[in-house]
């Protein structure tokens, strides 16, 4: 892999950094459904379904605006870096039964 490609990849976010965590969106599920990460970690969601999903923070009857992204189809990604400790619940706004949770722990725990 040459330096130019690496620089381009870093600019476009193609390469996940070592501190990334990943969530796969497949068969109308967030996999893993719940993950635990340290503060500062970037989470990358990747849609593997042939349909649009969303990654929307909160719950269907109480969105909280922390993040809300469409994953248009297979291969679509969304990333978000969690800078504060806490538990972040999220769901798909097109399929409300799809739920997930990110537990963000302070560094050093």
């Amino acid at each position, binding site marked *: 892999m040459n330096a130019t490609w690496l620089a381009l990849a870093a600019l476009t976010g193609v390469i996940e950094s070592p501190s990334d965590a990943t969530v796969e969106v*497949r*068969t*109308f*599920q967030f*996999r893993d*459904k719940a993950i635990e990460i340290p503060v500062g970690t970037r989470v990358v969601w990747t849609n*593997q*379904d*042939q*349909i649009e999903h969303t990654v929307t923070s909160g719950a269907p009857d109480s969105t909280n605006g922390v993040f809300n992204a469409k994953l248009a189809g297979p291969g679509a990604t969304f990333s978000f870096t969690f800078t504060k400790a806490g538990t972040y619940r999220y769901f798909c706004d*097109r*399929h409300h*039964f*799809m739920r997930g949770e990110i537990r963000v722990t302070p560094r050093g725990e």
Partner: protein
Amino acid sequence: MQPTRSLRLGIAVVAACLGLISPAMAQGTMEHEHSMATTTSSDLRVGLNSLLKEHVYLAAATTGAALGGRQDEFKSAAGALDANSVALSQAIGSVYGGDAGTAFLALWRKHIGFFVDYTTGVAKKDKKAQEKAVQDLIGYASDFAAFLNSANPNLPVSVVTDLVKAHVVGLKAAVDAQGQKDYATAYAKTREAAAHMQMIADPLASAIAKQFPEKFAMK
């Protein structure tokens, strides 16, 4: 509520085929109605056909009772319809995992909810509500196809979408006839809709058998 004899049979066949219960347990459940010595792709096909056809008959029984104002019958039919949905989800879950089964059940119940909306629109002669429900059902067809395709790439999205749309159109015709108290047509359309489920059950069974050849012997 006690499931019907044929529903028990369908659940037992699919459950045994997909490894939910042992053949011996299935035999007990079916009261020795059917031998389950081996798990074959044909057993799988028969089981899925049984459950999916039953879905249509129970759905029509539910909408018919609702439109006829028979509240007690409606509750019982809706309960049996949901038991059928759960059995289908257990079958899917036994192949693709419990979480996939749970997602399937939520998705499957969604289309039943849209049919409830449609039936309510027919009862109230509310054309807008009917149109909205039809649009929701058409949108659902794509979602359902995407789910199956994600679980099993042998099931093309466009093909499954068209098959589910045909299911929607077929059952809608039965509900329309029920609403007009044209019972001869209602039953004819219900039978057509039930027969059409083979168009979904057969390719679904084939695709699962193809995906898991070690689990489903081709016979």
